[in-house]
């Protein structure tokens, strides 16, 4: 997040929630006191909000207003916490559901491999706890290894997955230890991971890392259960340490039946490239696959954004931004969820009426909406509500709570319709790689929806045969087009799913039911026809008929979905009062999520007055003053150079600015060497030294911020600028 003064004025609690996922770039410049800046800059959140809400409010009641506002803020905080916890738990559930199958698979495999190990024989106590090798079959030295393909190059998402897997297996009676790549560093060697194993199994921190301790523990503890060691992602492990670990475990394979589970982020080549062949030979690998990030993303989008979850929603631009960020930038669910959380926070922070969401979630009867209970005085609130741009578009005549309640229920109804259609489309396109995330982004686009309506009407008037799929590309129409490619039986199944999905929306459901009944009649016909034995000619003709029939049916289905898309899919941004539920400010989100620290640092160095707010250099003069921050001076000076900066020149110009310009400017220009100077030589020397020290510190700061590279051996008197432009 950028250190702009606006963020400073966030209330502390929201700020805390905010900083949790928030990487702050370090400050080169110290911030001025926030109070001061708060008062001075007119663009802070607090004042802005006041302007938004009560532009004409009487000034004498400002203390009352403040109180009300505080109350309102508290309510919004509560609502935020409630909504976010709901979203978070939903996401967690979804992820767990996705993994259940794989987890069960892994668990069965663990127990089977354990039985295989056991069938090789159990050594008796002294043998099992001593380090001397048991002479056995070469095959018995192999370690059963589950390679879990996480299908994502970034592994942050799967930290939680492996933790859950550990819990799952523990619940099934296995001894489980989770190791991460941090345990496999070259620095700690095998001792490091052994120690971590001992810590997790024995719950004690013994100094000698010795595997025979583990063996005797296993003997004493419970040797009817497998020992599972989970390694998060092997790509990041140090290969030699990992292979040592594997070799050691394979030596003890009979004595401690260890089953390895390793997360592989890329391909199965990763272990092949990392481990030497003698370690690979010890592994008896099996492969498991987790859901792809795209699948998980779809599941999350479905549960959180499409299906009713919290009532909180995001606008089209925000959705597109988040989608692009996921696809082209980061590719992790973690950051997607973080973006969602930031959006949610911003929404509750900016929208005074967002406290309504709390009740909205609870599905309470909102026929009588007591606006007053949300903290703000009712008249301010009313004005705010009916000043919302979406409301003005529709122009509600009576500004009463009843009309508001009506509008809310209308919003709910339209959302339900939209949801049903989106899910129908998703189900249709599921097999053909139609991603819900894309679909979601397309279907909440208010502009294209308007176009869609006008377009289709026009086209249909002209030529009813032309389908919208020819008009436009995009996932939406792809899904619609897919309906036409279905066979009759597939269509039947699809219609049944549609029927289920549209139960809440009577208008659509009726049409689907109608089509279903048609299909059934048709089915009956065709099966009868199949039964009757007919000569070949007839058969072919009948076949033709059937084809025609089904064609017409499919035609009808396609028309139905087209009509659904046209009439029932109203994006949330087209509904009045959506601002209360929908976050639309994409710029805020971008700033908070990406931050762009390098750019920010450069801007801050150049425009430091805004941050420091000091009295000495606020005039906004472009000239360099000695009272400025050293690093800023240096950076501004560096702007005059190309990518190579002569250190001597740089230092001289720095000195000429720092040393009081009135008396020493001429001197330093004319006689840069100290030995030529006369008079108070000692103090001169001292100041020279201190200037040099300041120079060095500034250069180092620039180096640390990544804007400068120190002189190389080849060119010892030149520093190199690294980052250019903003």
């Amino acid at each position, binding site marked *: 997040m950028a250190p702009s003064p606006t963020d400073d004025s966030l209330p502390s609690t929201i700020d805390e929630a905010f900083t949790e996922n928030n990487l702050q770039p370090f400050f080169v410049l110290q911030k001025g006191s926030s109070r001061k800046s708060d008062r001075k800059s007119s663009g802070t959140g607090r004042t802005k909000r006041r302007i938004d809400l009560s532009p004409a409010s009487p000034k004498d009641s400002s203390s009352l207003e403040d109180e009300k506002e505080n109350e309102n803020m508290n309510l919004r905080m509560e609502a935020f916490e409630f909504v976010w916890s709901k979203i978070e738990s939903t996401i967690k559930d979804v992820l767990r559901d996705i993994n259940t199958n794989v987890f069960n698979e892994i668990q069965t495999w663990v127990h089977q491999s354990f039985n295989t190990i056991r069938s090789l024989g159990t050594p008796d106590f002294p043998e099992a706890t001593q380090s001397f090798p*048991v002479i056995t079959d070469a095959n018995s030295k192999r370690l059963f290894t589950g390679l879990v393909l996480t299908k994502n190059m970034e592994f942050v998402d799967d930290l939680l997955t492996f933790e859950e897997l550990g819990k799952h297996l523990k619940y099934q009676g296995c001894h489980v230890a989770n190791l991460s790549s941090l345990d496999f560093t070259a620095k700690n060697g095998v001792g490091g991971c052994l120690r971590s194993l001992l810590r997790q199994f024995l719950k004690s921190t013994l100094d000698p890392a010795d595997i025979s301790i583990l063996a005797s523990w296993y003997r004493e503890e419970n040797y009817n259960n497998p020992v599972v060691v989970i390694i998060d992602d092997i790509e*990041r492990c140090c290969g030699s340490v990992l292979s040592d670990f594997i070799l050691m475990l394979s030596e003890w394979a009979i004595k401690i039946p260890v089953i390895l589970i390793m997360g592989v982020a890329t391909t199965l080549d990763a272990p092949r490239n*990392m481990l030497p062949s003698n370690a690979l030979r010890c592994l008896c690998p099996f*492969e498991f696959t987790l859901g792809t990030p795209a699948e998980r993303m779809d599941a999350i989008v479905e549960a959180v954004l499409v299906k009713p979850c919290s009532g909180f929603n995001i606008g089209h631009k925000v959705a597109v931004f988040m989608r692009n960020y996921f696809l082209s*930038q980061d590719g992790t669910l973690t950051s997607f969820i973080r973006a969602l959380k930031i959006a949610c926070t911003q929404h509750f922070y900016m929208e005074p009426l967002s406290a309504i969401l709390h009740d909205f979630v609870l599905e309470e009867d909102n026929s009588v909406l007591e606006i007053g209970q949300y903290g703000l005085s009712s008249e301010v609130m009313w004005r705010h509500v009916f000043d919302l741009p979406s409301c003005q578009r529709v122009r509600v005549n009576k500004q009463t709570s009843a009309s508001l309640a009506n509008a809310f229920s209308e919003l709910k109804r339209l959302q339900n319709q939209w949801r049903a259609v989106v899910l129908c489309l998703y189900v249709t396109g599921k097999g053909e790689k139609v991603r819900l995330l894309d679909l979601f982004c397309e279907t909440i686009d208010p502009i*294209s929806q308007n176009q869609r309506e006008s377009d289709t009407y026009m086209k249909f008037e002209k030529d009813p045969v032309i389908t919208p799929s020819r008009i436009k590309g995009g996932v939406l129409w792809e899904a619609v087009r897919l309906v036409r490619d279905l066979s009759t039986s597939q269509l039947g199944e699809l219609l049944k799913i549609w029927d289920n999905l549209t139960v809440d929306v009577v208008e659509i459901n009726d049409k689907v039911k109608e089509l279903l009944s048609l299909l059934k009649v048709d089915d009956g016909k065709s099966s009868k026809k199949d039964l009757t034995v007919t000569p070949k000619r007839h058969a072919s003709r009948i076949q033709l008929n059937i084809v025609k029939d089904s064609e017409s049916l499919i035609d009808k289905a396609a028309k139905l979905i087209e009509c659904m898309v046209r009439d029932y899919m109203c994006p949330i941004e087209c509904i009045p009062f959506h601002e209360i539920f929908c976050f639309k400010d994409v710029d805020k989100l971008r700033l908070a999520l990406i931050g*762009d620290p390098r750019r920010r640092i450069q801007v801050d160095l150049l425009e430091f007055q805004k941050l420091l707010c000091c009295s000495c250099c606020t005039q906004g003069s472009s000239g360099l003053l000695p009272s400025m921050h050293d690093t800023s001076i240096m950076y501004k000076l560096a702007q005059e150079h190309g990518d190579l900066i002569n250190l001597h020149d740089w230092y001289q110009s720095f000195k000429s600015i720092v040393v009081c310009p009135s008396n020493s400017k001429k001197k330093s220009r004319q006689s840069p060497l100290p030995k030529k100077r006369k008079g108070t030589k000692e103090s001169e020397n001292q100041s020279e030294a201190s200037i040099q020290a300041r120079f060095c510190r500034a250069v180092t700061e620039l180096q640390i911020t990544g804007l400068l*590279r120190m002189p190389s051996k080849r060119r010892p008197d030149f520093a190199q600028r690294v980052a250019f432009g903003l």
Partner: protein
Amino acid sequence: MDMEGSPQVTRRTTRSCAVSSNDVESTKPSESYKPTLNDLAFGKQPFGLEDLLSRFPCRRTQILEFLRLLGPLNSPLFPVLVYGGPSTGKTSVTLQDSKHSYSSVKRCERPSDFVNYLREALENVISSLKGNSGKSNSKMSGRPDGTMMPEVGLIFISNISPDMYYLNIGYVEPIPLYFLNYTEDDLRHIFMVNQTNRKLYASFLDVVLRPFCRVTRRVDELAAALSSLFKKYCEPLSDKEVAPNEEMKRKLFSQIRPHISSALNETFQVRSQPLLGAEANKTKKTNSSKMSGILEDFDKIDFHMSTSAKYLLISAFLASRNPATLDASLFDSTGVSDSRKRKRKASEKSMDQKEMAEQELHMKGPGTFPLERLLAIFQCITSLAEDSLDEEESRELTTEGSSRGLMSDVLLQLSSLCNANFIIKGGSCPLEGSTRYRTAVSEDLALKVARSLKFPLSKYLYRR
């Protein structure tokens, strides 16, 4: 490790030594006999010489020699150095032999360990102890034996020849005992031990052993490879006890042949989970996807990567493969024709020189590059790609600042590519900025990634 004969030697001592359990090379048990519980309880049932010899086929001379060196009980034992290639039965033979004549076998790594260990053991079992066999891979433990009492026998096991241990310090030179590598016939003998259906297995070995022997003669490696192959070999047979006739052998051979070559190349075969209910169609799926996958999912990467990471990977690949001098001509349209022409009109001598340089480059593998070069190429590529993208996908989802967006946290992507081992980072101070990178990506993967982006990689790749 202590044997039954001296249980009073405490576990503590073994613990202190067991840190060394990662010296693996010489501790490979090598014989493929089936272990039973009785086998493991060595000390209890002393067995005869014949028994011993039958356990280790093709090691007759070595065993006899070893026993001769050990000599009768109560006689002093000169140090013995058992050496030979990996997996030739050194450890197993030694263990079994000394087991049947001596009471205690231990292992350790550092000389101090060894001395401490020995003293403790001597205190405990002073009456019964006849000899210890210290076992080590390192030169170090060769030292203390010069000062040891004559009753203590030392047996060193190593896979390095005795010349390496020659120190000339004055202690008694160990007597070398060489375990030579198994021949193909030896291996056949070894693998025939304990087979239930000997004829079938013999026919199997006829087919399989020769090609494998060319690759490796290590019993442990072979045992792993053969056991899975044998399962495949037996698959078509309903009755595993039947003795195969010629026709059947031929049939089985034709069936196993494709598997042999693949098994030869592959030490690391990943099986997918064959346990659950869906097993049948699942295995079918994996098989078919391996065959048809080449055609179908040709340009599909197996894992998710964000677009900017893909571009970064490609630019790293290019930076590693192309010489830096060509960058300008490849990415700057003005320089191309000029440099190409000059190359064609090269003299004989300079051609030779160039060839040499190319070979050298080839030997060196992918080159290193500084961060700046990577970023420059990245920027060229992405700006190019976005131009074409804009033409193709006119509107909709690429609305907001995707061009700037791609650049924003490249360094983050770079670090995650480093984490995934696609790019290797040369070690140096991160602040210095002189870190050099190198790609470890195979051309196949790079091409796949490029294809998924519709990026014409081959156009930018400098071919020698």
